[in-house]
């Protein structure tokens, strides 16, 4: 064969190929095959990594798309409106997400169909003094004008004034009403109270306590309790005197099943109060005591009882705390008992009314998100969950066996047996500690969760919160919505800024620029800018946009979409310029020459002929640039896009976050629930990127012209 040693090609700087003569061809072929194999392996490594990586992220993300939901019976009562926790029964309360507990009372008060109105009889009068014009309806009894006026909300007052001025007439509803009669909006507190006042229909008749301290009467609740729950409640009404003396039992009675705590709160509302009463509950579920009890807030002018969980067996009155109202003004005093009674009386007399009979949003039951810890526990592998349940028993059993063995006389077989038992015990204990570390629920809570699952009260549902909510400190309520809105806004800004500037620059460099030093400088500079680390763009944004923004406007544009968009625009600009230049360069010279020959100016040539021909290429480059902008994180962290954004931003100048930054923030959180959310957000981000890149590739394939 011909020797390669005489190879004088300039590209072979070594020129040391003379040894090839001595190597047999077969071996050289083998070497060649081996080399090819290495290359294939390199490609396979890259692809295998991509595959494993996607699998890993998807595997971690999967649980986040599902959420344990818990079936609760909800109570919209005055108590549940004032006190979040009271809306859900105590057995499920520890497992229900705090977010859900917060929204239930809010739902109760926000029901738009449940506006409360006050009835007034309106006379002609002076608009400046509307109180003189209103007259309490006869049914209200001793109600004075002033008292009536206090019930009327600001909207209602506006309505009355407007009618007195003759601006418009309040509609007289229903034909059978007397002519002067109007219904106007009540104040917020009346509204809140009555809206939540489910049982205000006179079904509760409780009297007492009488002189002996006995409460009598019956409480009926319109279809509330779940009949299948057999819970017996014994309540003792305890009286505190004005001084802090020991409570004494006033009455003992058995109440309706299931949700006795609410009933009790009502029972208490019915009890004439001159002093402060505290209720102690003894709850028996199927004969077994239920551990948790509760104290409703009961107030008079002097005292306030705090909510305390009292341990029910044995009854220990010392666990009830109470404080004096005088010492500290409460943040938001609930409606006092007297006022509640008063409002109810008005309602029954027909002075107040709800617009619809069933105005309270009373869903009997609902599926609400369970706490993230419950969710995490239930999504553990079955092996771990079973292990958590059975391992303690196994460990106990082994320990007993060991103890029995050690009682026996020791000989070699016993010793052997003991050794094997011990190693098994060690292994089990190791497993158990490992498993225990994977959940935050203690043994008792786990048992309860299992009981709820068995009863069908916990189920898995699709995690809609993930797509509809913004940032939250609760994993079960956190979602990517506000980050998505932020990403869209930032992308819009990037597009609005870097697309025109980039394309104009490309047009200048390709079509207009003279070949001089400045042009060369710009070209070198653009290539260079494309390789500048993105974090330096963050420093630029911090120094120029935030510093400069303060210089121009009296606002802090830190962590806004505006500063993020501007910063990313500069980062993406070189990419758009380079790809647009390539697209412009691909348009053949003959088109330009033809246009020029027809008498077009250079700008007309570009604008009418070159640009339309290269538009698909430019758009492809822009999409790829935007895809890169979506994923940028570091510069945005530097310009302060790390704000906690629970609700989607409403403009360029409000606090914003974007998807990758949200991912980073979730990653930095310690709760295990956020781990899955991070992976899920990554999946969404990757899906968006993949779609964009695929669009770019398709666009290129569809519109690419071969000249």
């Amino acid at each position: 064969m011909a020797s390669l040693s005489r190879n004088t090609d300039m590209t072979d700087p070594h020129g040391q190929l003379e040894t090839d003569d001595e190597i047999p061809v077969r071996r050289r072929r083998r070497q060649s095959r081996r080399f090819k194999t290495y290359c294939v392996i390199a490609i396979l490594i890259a692809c295998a990594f991509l595959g494993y990586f996607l699998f890993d992220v998807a595997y971690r993300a999967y649980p986040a798309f599902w959420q344990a939901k818990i079936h609760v019976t909800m109570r919209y009562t005055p108590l549940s409106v004032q006190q979040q926790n009271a809306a859900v029964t105590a057995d499920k309360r520890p497992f229900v997400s705090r977010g859900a507990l917060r929204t239930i009372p809010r739902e109760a008060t926000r029901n738009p169909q449940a506006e409360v109105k006050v009835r007034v009889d309106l006379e002609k009068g002076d608009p400046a003094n509307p109180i003189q014009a209103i007259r309490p309806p006869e049914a209200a009894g001793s109600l004075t004008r002033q008292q009536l006026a206090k019930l009327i909300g600001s909207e209602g007052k506006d309505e009355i004034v407007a009618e007195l001025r003759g601006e418009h007439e309040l509609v007289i509803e229903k034909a059978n009403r007397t002519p002067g009669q109007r219904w106007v909006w009540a104040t917020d507190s009346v509204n809140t109270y009555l809206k939540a006042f489910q049982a205000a229909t006179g079904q509760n008749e409780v009297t007492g306590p009488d002189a002996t301290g006995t409460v009598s009467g019956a409480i009926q609740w319109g279809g509330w309790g779940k009949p299948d729950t057999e819970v017996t409640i014994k309540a003792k009404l305890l009286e505190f005197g004005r001084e802090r003396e020991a409570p004494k039992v006033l009455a003992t009675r058995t109440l309706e099943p299931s949700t006795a705590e609410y009933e009790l709160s009502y029972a208490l509302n019915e009890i004439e109060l001159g002093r402060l009463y505290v209720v102690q509950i003894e709850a028996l579920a199927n004969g077994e005591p239920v551990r948790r009890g509760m104290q409703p807030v009961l107030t008079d002018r002097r005292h306030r009882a705090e909510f305390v969980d009292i341990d029910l067996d044995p009854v220990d009155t010392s666990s009830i705390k109470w404080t004096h109202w005088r010492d500290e003004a409460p943040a938001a005093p609930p409606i006092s008992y007297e006022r509640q009674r008063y409002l109810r009386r008005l309602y029954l007399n027909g002075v107040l009314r709800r617009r619809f009979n069933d105005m309270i949003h009373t869903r009997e039951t609902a599926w609400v998100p369970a706490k993230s810890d419950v969710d995490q526990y239930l999504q553990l592998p079955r092996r771990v969950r079973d292990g958590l349940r059975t391992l303690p028993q196994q460990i106990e059993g082994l320990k007993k066996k060991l103890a029995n063995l050690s009682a026996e006389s020791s000989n070699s077989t016993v010793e052997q047996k003991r050794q094997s038992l011990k190693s098994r015990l060690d292994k089990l204990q190791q497993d158990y500690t490992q498993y225990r570390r994977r959940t935050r629920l203690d043994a008792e809570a786990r048992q309860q969760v299992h009981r709820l699952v068995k009863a069908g009260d916990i189920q898995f549902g699709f995690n809609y919160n993930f797509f509809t909510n913004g940032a939250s400190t609760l994993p079960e309520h956190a979602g990517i919505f506000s980050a998505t809105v932020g990403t869209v806004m930032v992308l819009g800004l990037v597009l609005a800024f870097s697309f025109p500037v980039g394309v104009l620059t490309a047009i200048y460099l390709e079509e207009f620029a003279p070949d001089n030093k400045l042009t060369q400088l710009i070209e070198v500079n653009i290539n260079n800018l494309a390789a500048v680390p993105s974090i330096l763009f963050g420093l630029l944004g911090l120094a120029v946009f935030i510093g400069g923004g303060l210089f121009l406007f009296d606002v802090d544009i830190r962590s806004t979409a505006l500063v993020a968009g501007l910063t990313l625009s500069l980062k993406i600009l070189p990419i758009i310029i380079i790809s647009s230049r390539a697209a412009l360069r691909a348009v053949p010279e003959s088109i330009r020459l033809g246009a020029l020959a027809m008498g077009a100016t250079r700008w007309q040539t570009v604008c009418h002929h070159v640009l339309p021909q290269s538009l698909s290429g430019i758009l492809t480059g822009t999409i790829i640039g935007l895809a890169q902008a979506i994923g940028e994180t570091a510069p945005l962290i530097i310009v302060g896009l790390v704000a906690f954004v629970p609700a989607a931003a409403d403009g360029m100048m409000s606090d914003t976050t974007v998807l990758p930054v949200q991912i980073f923030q979730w990653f930095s959180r310690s709760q295990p629930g956020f781990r899955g959310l991070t992976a899920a957000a990554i999946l969404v981000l990757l899906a968006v990127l993949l779609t964009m890149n695929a669009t770019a590739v398709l666009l290129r394939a569809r519109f690419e012209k071969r000249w």
Partner: protein
Amino acid sequence: MSAGTVLILALLGIVPIAALGFFLGRRKPMAALADGQEFHSSPDYYGWYAVVWMFAPALAISFLILALQSMGVLEAVIGIERPGVLVLGAWIALPALLAWPIVRTIRPELRARIIVERVVYGILVLASLVSILTTIAITLSVLFEAIQFFTHPDVDALEFFTSTRWAPGSGWSAGGAASGSGQFGALPLFTGTFIITLIAMLVAAPVGVLAAVYMSEFAPRRIRRIAKPLLEVLAGIPTVVYGFFAAITVTPALVWLADGVDAYVLMPLNQALGVTGDQMWLLEATHSNGLSPGLIMGVMIIPFMSSLSDDVISAVPHDLRKGAHALGATDAEVVKRVVLPAATPGIVSAFLLSVSRAIGETMIVTMAASVQANQTFNPLDNMTTVTVQIVYLLTGDQKFDSAMTLAAFGLGLTLLVLTLILNVVASIVIRKFHQQYE
């Protein structure tokens, strides 16, 4: 009224005013065209002419206001501290006022086309200057703050590059509160950056080049069509995602691996050799070691390296390959002895650009590497990098002029200079390569 609403109102105002000007300017020439009267340029140009002259004074006034503001005159004379609203006002009021007078100047002999095209040319030049301005702004903003940092009383410039004690925020003022100063010896940061970059390149360079060789030399067309987009997908994955993977999957795996090696290989070995106590040779991987971000950064750079190398390998003239084949060389020999040597400058340039990218990479190391500075060459130990520290220093609640914040700009300057040198050298090398074959 917030600045945001002002901005939106302004944008909403400017567009209709511009459109109005355009149509007003076009009206007369259009009518004339219908009459058969000759204008110098086509009607659209008169529309644009009107728009240009409507907004030119606004632009000039804006610059004037900004100049006055930076000189402090504005505040002294009319007492306006932030002229943003004034500027935006000028952009609405002036064009609206000027629209009619300008439209009235339109006459048949007015050479609108030439004027408009000149303005367009100016706009094109301005647009292309944005990128230069960006570079200048980056350099200056980093430079100024960095100078402030190096001349800060708490900071010793020499110590910055030679000391191994990095503890920003450890200084305490007389009052007992953290003063934002501390010890700034950045050597551990540079070491960490170097080691992690080295690991990344050890992964990326061989795999990237071999993948590029396969793609451009050996791959059948069908495989190329599948594998190339796959590599592009790999290149498009955001670094925050890689960081998550490194921290959540790779680091625990490495720790587990190191423990396993300890238990099943090194411990028996130590026992066999009779080594005990502190002398025992063990692998100890920490949970924020440098190896994991290094490896993943390498994977991140593979497609970058591979596509750059692919470009240069494809640019090697086919005659060279044909010649070598004709002389009886096998495929591998052609690649190893002819194509790769020819493409060496391009591959070196790709390598340098990749190194520059690895040095500047932020999210992977922020998520997977340590925050604590630790002067070590052991990749299994805690390690921090320049970029991690920039993020760490700038996300705190320090004052803008405290030494801690300024230190971030000092590090930024180092980063800028380093990457700039690498990029420039890379571009020089690649230009040499292209000159050779084009």
